[in-house]
């Protein structure tokens, strides 16, 4: 008797909606929360059926689920949209179980959690994100077209032979500014897409990414000589990343060259494996003007938290930081010469990596437990996804 009392108290005290549906669709039992949420009295509940409380568009699907349960199965984590007495919509998630009397299934019990507020908030968030993406995309597209017109107009001045030579300097400055603005809005678009995108991580060759980024930077600064020394060799280390891996190194190299006034710019890339872990540490060292302690503090901070860009770096390092976070790694910054920030900057990146030689060893030593490179990549990618989710959660908490 005490147990029955306990169950009744639980059913009546819970915020979950509980009902018991008979084969004809009428209700054998509904709890207090069900009545309050859907706006019916005890007596009204005896006169209505399932068809009266399920949102029309979801009714057929729900009736199919009810049939399944009458055949003895359980339906877990289902979504159902109820309709209240006044026509409002209530979003719920829950489970359906068969109610048995001996061998016979006499009714279907439904336990539902009201997730309306969460659902509305999720929908609003999705709409806001879609709106933001749309406007950013539109703005970037239209601004780029405007920049194209301005750039081409200035180039016409530059190209015509009778344009006064003493004014060409101003034209050149204007062209540089347009390119800077274009780069900035391109980065805004990239960062917006990165935030919205759920990337599939794969293995990418680290040396190849460094080499490709270096080539791009060299073509951006034809007037400078860029001397890159790297300890990375092709096909040696594959890191968990996506198509934007090159962009990380491009951004770091580009800054090293851009802010170094020397005609010959030296950049060193060297690496070491982090022992007993699937991580590689990559250092990108330059000998440029460096970054002060004060500037270092906010250099990777999300743009929403930063009042102004540092040294004109724009969104570049924000993107770098976000990309590396997406890969389950992280980036730090230090002085090339400890204690003297004016002698250059060293960025250190930690990424998850796979060495082909490690895979070979595993295959040789234990055939029964061998991991193919793809399996290992999948494992690491999974770990990276988890790390990314944890990082996202942490970031969201920080914002809150």
């Amino acid at each position, binding site marked *: 008797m005490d147990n029955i009392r306990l169950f009744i108290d639980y059913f009546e005290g819970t915020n979950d909606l509980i009902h018991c549906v008979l084969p004809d669709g009428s209700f054998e039992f509904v709890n207090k929360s069900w009545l309050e949420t859907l706006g019916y009295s005890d007596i009204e509940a005896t006169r209505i059926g399932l068809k009266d409380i399920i949102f029309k568009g979801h009714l057929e699907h729900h009736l199919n689920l009810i049939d399944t349960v009458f055949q003895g199965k359980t339906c877990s984590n289902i979504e159902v949209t109820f309709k209240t007495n006044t026509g409002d919509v209530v979003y719920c998630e829950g489970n359906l179980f068969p109610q048995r009397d001996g061998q016979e299934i006499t009714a279907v019990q439904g336990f539902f959690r009201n997730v309306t507020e969460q659902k509305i908030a999720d929908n609003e968030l999705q709409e806001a994100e879609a709106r933001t993406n749309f406007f950013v995309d539109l703005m970037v597209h239209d601004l780029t*077209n405007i*920049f194209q017109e301005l750039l*081409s107009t200035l180039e016409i001045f530059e190209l015509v032979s009778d344009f006064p030579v003493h004014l060409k300097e101003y034209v050149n400055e204007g062209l540089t500014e347009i390119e800077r603005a274009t780069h900035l809005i391109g980065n805004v678009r990239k960062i917006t897409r990165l935030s919205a995108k759920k990337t599939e991580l794969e293995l990418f060759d680290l040396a190849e990414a460094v080499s490709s980024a270096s080539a791009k930077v060299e073509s951006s600064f034809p007037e400078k000589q860029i001397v890159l020394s790297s300890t990375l060799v092709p096909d040696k280390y594959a890191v968990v990343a996506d198509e934007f891996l090159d962009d990380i190194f491009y951004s770091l190299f580009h800054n090293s060259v851009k802010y170094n006034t020397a005609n010959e710019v030296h950049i060193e890339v060297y690496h070491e494996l982090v022992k007993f872990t699937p991580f590689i540490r990559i250092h990108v060292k330059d000998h440029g003007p460096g970054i002060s302690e004060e500037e270092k503090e906010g250099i990777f901070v999300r743009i929403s938290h930063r009042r102004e860009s540092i040294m004109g770096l724009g969104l570049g390092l924000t993107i770098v930081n976000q990309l590396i976070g997406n890969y389950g790694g992280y980036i730090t910054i230090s002085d090339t010469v400890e204690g003297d920030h004016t002698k250059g900057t060293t960025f250190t990146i930690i990424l998850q990596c796979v060495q082909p030689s490690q895979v070979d060893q595993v295959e040789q030593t234990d055939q029964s437990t061998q991991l193919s490179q793809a399996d290992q990549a999948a494992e690491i990618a999974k770990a990276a996804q988890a790390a990314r989710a944890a990082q996202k959660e942490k970031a969201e908490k920080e914002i809150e």
Partner: protein
Amino acid sequence: MVTVLIVDDDKFLHKVLEKIITIGGHQVVGHAFDGAEAIERFVQLNPKPDIILMDHRMPVMTGTTATRKILAMDQTAIIIFISADDSVYDEAIDAGAKGFLTKPIRSANLFDALKQYTE
């Protein structure tokens, strides 16, 4: 000298691009302001332009759709995309574009492309 058909929904861009192309010693033989008009102009032009500079995001018909339709009519047509959105690169190449220039485009890069794709 390379003959060019410019396809872009931005009128002023036509004006400045034509000027630059002319300074570079080439000739703009036609203008279209959306994908459907591009097909129409291409059909009308005789001889055909050496190169079509094609924007992607345009009213009526996108650049990739127009590219597929033009290439279905004439496989020898050379289409180079000029777009502010490099995320459509794969779509453009799949449609049959020979090249892709991301706006804003410097005149030197444009001249290089005109030369490269008509050699």
